[in-house]
């Protein structure tokens, strides 16, 4: 089971209402390489992965939910004071018509989240390489959003999240080596 803790993993401040930035950020909420995809991908793989890396998948999957909450907080703060006109001008007119200011699991283009974003091959090496690629894609997405953003407070939180992707990728790469070592030692005996 999980326990909820009433705090963000890292503080989230936004300088001003900016629905256009929210539209870009939603990519990391309900997009292919976003935090929801990441959390569900890792936690789902845990059941059939070798014991030695179940802990890592559990912990990174759990941290991804903390990142999802940070993204949600950013989107909420960037849009909570936006007028319908501002939402429309930011390209969120269609979103507003369907969801008002509610958050929704969709990508920056407005397509809803789908399970086809994640895979579960059942082969531990294939699954872990998938995870490494996902982290690198998420890192790149954070960089593209930072490039589009002129909000210094928001960028501080986005840089924290970008750095976390690098660490996750590194840990997954170590997990691959652990499994290869285990596989090779079995071959000898």
């Amino acid at each position, binding site marked *: 089971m999980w326990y909820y803790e009433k*705090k963000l993993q890292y503080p989230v401040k936004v300088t001003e209402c900016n629905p256009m930035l929210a539209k870009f950020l939603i990519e990391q909420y309900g997009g292919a390489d976003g935090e929801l995809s990441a959390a569900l991908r890792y936690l789902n793989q845990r059941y059939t992965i070798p014991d030695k890396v179940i802990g890592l998948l559990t*912990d990174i999957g759990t941290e991804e939910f903390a990142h999802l909450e940070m993204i949600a*907080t950013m989107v909420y703060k960037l849009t909570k004071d936006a007028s319908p006109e501002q939402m429309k001008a930011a390209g969120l007119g269609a979103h507003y018509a369907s969801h008002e200011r509610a958050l929704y699991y969709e990508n920056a283009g407005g397509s809803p989240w789908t399970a086809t974003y994640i895979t579960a091959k059942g082969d531990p090496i294939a699954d872990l390489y998938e995870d490494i690629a996902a982290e690198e894609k998420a890192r790149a997405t954070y960089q593209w959003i930072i490039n589009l953003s002129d909000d210094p407070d928001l960028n501080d939180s986005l840089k924290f999240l970008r750095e976390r992707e690098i660490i996750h990728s590194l840990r997954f790469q*170590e997990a691959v080596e652990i499994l290869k070592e285990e596989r090779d030692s079995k071959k000898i005996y």
Partner: protein
Amino acid sequence: MAKQVPKEYYQLLQEIQEVDFVLVELNLYLDTHPDDYDAIEQFNNYSQTSRELKNNFEQQFGPLMGFGASYSNYPFNWGNTPWPWQV
């Protein structure tokens, strides 16, 4: 909607966020380096520090965790604002 929260809320919360970040980092590191004695010692020390900081925070600002991982005052104050996205 959240009321104004005192400066101390942010200060104490940030101390907790810093210590808990160290714990997340050490935890992930130890997941792939389970034999690092020094890292385990750091992990246990920071775990103790985190508990102390949270006890202090909770006495002033209410429970951080649900389902009984934190104590409650009367009336039940788990649902009180602010929630994390409101500050």
